[in-house]
């Protein structure tokens, strides 16, 4: 187990090194930091960005929107997904909504939302609408994948409902809940920042990226992007640890709770 973790992170490091090398080569070829700044320049810009006044309040404003949009989509996605996964007519009624939300371009939602809402609410609303169907369909699929033989076992032995929820349904859904969590969170970050670029709230990463664009501060754009990637990596790593804990029964070994 430990050995495989080590080798997998070693491979990941090789992957990162390759990406950085390609990036470096590209920036050397173009030789123009306005088009493609080098990794070193981007890191330097990141250092500057982090030290600027208002950095943390911008980061916090965006993070708060992500948190709101994500929580809303996760909570409602859970409820709608569970309903659609367990009640057939509900599934049929909801499927057009999910399909529509999955295909609608984020830009048309953003433009509408700008008309409807104050600029700070737009990213929350759009992130919610984009992440919600992901969570809902993942949870719905999870409900459908609960082993029918174990559902029968639960019926025959008259297992009380709260035991069935914690003993059968939650563990069956766990892989779907975890994957919906990471997908919805990643999606929320992307959408919030993109929508901020369009709706221009007074605080937020999107606004800072837009002004960096208008002043042709390409290294700063890269710096913000690096920051978002780092945030995503951290969230994934934390979730990976959680997943390993939740699925240790698959090891089949002598574990104690």
């Amino acid at each position, binding site marked *: 187990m430990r050995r495989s973790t080590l080798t997998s992170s070693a491979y990941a490091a090789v992957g990162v090194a390759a990406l950085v090398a390609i990036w470096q080569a590209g920036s050397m070829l173009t030789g123009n930091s306005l088009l493609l700044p080098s990794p070193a320049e981007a890191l330097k810009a990141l250092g500057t960005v982090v030290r600027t006044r208002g950095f943390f309040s911008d980061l916090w404003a965006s993070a708060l929107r992500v948190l709101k949009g994500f929580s809303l989509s996760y909570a409602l996605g859970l409820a709608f997904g569970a309903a659609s996964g367990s009640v057939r007519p509900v599934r049929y009624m909801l499927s057009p909504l999910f399909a529509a939300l999955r295909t609608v371009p984020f830009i048309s939602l953003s433009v509408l939302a700008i008309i409807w809402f104050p600029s700070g609410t737009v990213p929350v609303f759009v992130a919610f609408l984009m992440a919600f169907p992901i969570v809902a369909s993942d949870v719905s699929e999870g409900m459908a994948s609960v082993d029918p*033989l*174990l559902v*029968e*076992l639960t*019926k*025959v*032995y*008259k*297992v009380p409902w709260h*035991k069935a929820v914690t*003993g*059968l349904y939650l*563990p069956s859904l766990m892989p779907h809940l975890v994957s919906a969590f990471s997908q919805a969170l990643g999606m929320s970050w992307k959408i919030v920042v993109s929508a901020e670029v369009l709706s221009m709230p007074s605080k937020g990463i999107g606004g800072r990226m837009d002004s960096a664009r208008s002043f042709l501060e390409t290294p700063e754009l890269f710096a913000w992007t690096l920051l978002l990637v780092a945030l995503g990596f951290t969230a994934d790593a934390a979730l990976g640890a959680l997943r390993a804990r939740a699925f240790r*029964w*698959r*090891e*089949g*070994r*002598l*574990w*104690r709770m």
Partner: protein
Amino acid sequence: MEDVTVRNLGKSFDGKPVFSNLDMTFVNGEVTAVLGPSGRGKTTLIRVLCGLERQDVGDVAMPEGIGCSVVFQEPRLLPWLTVEGNLRYCMDGEGAGRALEILSGLGLDGFKDRYPTSLSGGEQQRVNLARALASPERVLLMDEPFNSIGLGMKAELLPLLRERIASERKTVVLVTHSPVDVALMADRFYLMNDDGKGADGPFTLEIGKAGRKLDDDELGQQVHKLMKLMASLGKGARDPDELK
């Protein structure tokens, strides 16, 4: 009346009859076997008895307020729970403790913290058996319960089963294709007819309520008689007296 009876029971899927005209009495305090080759609806009979399926015609008379425990053909263990967690999922702590005792009697002492994926098929099936045996429900339904369980282990089961029948006043239905299982365990048995219409029986077995293990010779003779009976019934000759 503590017996479970079925009258004129019939069930079909998509218009194809699985069985029909079943009349059977499962006597309280006894093991009644239903013997027949695969595809005669034995599993469906179990599913109707425990309420997972509804019959098309006929009646199932179950004494008021009495529930079932089932030994399923498959182990049906929750993979994310330990052996003990699985037992506690289906019954209270007392029942789970009883099941763990039964398990140690079946050679699985000290297995309570193991996860199902680390058990062999036979070991999983023993957990399935212990779960149903330990359940306080008064009707015990067993659907080919001895899959991947050796003859020695089956013989070990008999006294356990008798003890549970006596202490909980259980009614046991054992559905199987194996004459050996019937000879080992059953007090009486029915033979499902080849054409799916009705069943013959009940026939009584000598092994009876004494609950003693048969020695090899006795077992061999019983199985031989059973095979002969099955063959003769298959040919249309009906001579239950053959089996004394």
